[in-house]
């Protein structure tokens, strides 16, 4: 795997994402759900909301990096608020 140029931070990053995907897959199997319509007027399941959260978080982090500077922990706090909002209202 040396050719992939792994580092610990990137490995942790992917482990967190993999962990989230596995958790949500297990949740989806154990507790099936009906899709619902939120403020975006589209049907979403928990998985969709996770996707919207992750994609949005990527943009929030980039915006933070570009506008404020490399202080990502603060950006992550914004992401967390965003995630809560997505899971509550979308």
């Amino acid at each position, binding site marked *: 795997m040396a050719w992939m140029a792994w*580092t610990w931070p990137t490995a942790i990053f992917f482990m967190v994402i993999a962990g989230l995907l596995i958790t949500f897959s297990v949740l989806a199997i154990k507790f099936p759900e009906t899709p619902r319509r939120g403020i975006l007027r589209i049907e979403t399941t928990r998985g969709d909301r996770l996707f919207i959260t992750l994609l949005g978080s990527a943009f929030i982090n980039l915006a933070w990096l570009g506008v404020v500077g490399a202080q990502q922990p603060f950006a992550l706090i914004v992401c967390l608020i965003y995630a809560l909002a997505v899971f509550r209202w979308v």
Partner: protein
Amino acid sequence: MNKTVNQKAWFLVLPVLLLVAFSAVIPLMTVVNYSVQDTFGQNEFFWSGLIWFEEMLASDRMWDALGRQLMFSGIILAIQVPLGIFVALNMPKSGVWSSVCLVLMSLPLLIPWNVVGTIWQVFGRTDIGLLGYTLDALGINYNYTQDRLAAWVTLIVMDVWHWTSLVALLAFAGLKSIPDAYYQAAKIDQASRWKVFRYIELPKMSGVLTIAILLRFMDSFKIYTEPFVVTGGGPGNATTLLSIDLVKMALGQFDLGPAAAFSIMYFLVILLVSWVFYTVMTNLDKEES
């Protein structure tokens, strides 16, 4: 009626997932790894944190390329969508000529990108190309290798030639699905041609047109081969679109770190648009059913 969703069927896509893992996910993970490191070759890497992302976000080069890319996508959409609808409206609805039109319209779609690029590269040359030679003979100063405007016009006309058929075919499919009763009702009401288009044809085509717009946006946003073959991103940087700039950075300059950061941001934009595309399509299907 709300049905509970059974998610177990997702396990059936595991084989595809494995395939995609090798062809896309693992290379993408490698790109993420590159984006936080620096290298001078020999597969030796040094941790550099987020500086490549900061550098890219602050670089005029990337924003300029993004601006050109958005302008390119905007212009081709503004031409191809109305033109495609216009062509579809004027195509024969049935009979032999309908089939002839359909075959002719499909031809440009069957030609590989690099061949399209080569066709237009030769077509536009003032020494041997029919278009370039004719324009030159008419006294019009046309040289796509030196003049920015000529380069842009060539790329846009080429893309319009290549892809308007797709919009036209989709719009045509939308038109064909309108029952005759609608037109008869319009005739009884003595509706004008414009009103028939505005209140019958356009609403009935809106589904396929959404798909056409999103498809054309995504495709034009990723365009690489045709401009690369025709202008190579020139003159200067005039037609250096995002993917051309990215390849220059990654392979030309071997700046793997910045190129990786650039790729990730580019990928995120494509991912966002694809998601919108998928969501709009699935929601349209649901509304129709």
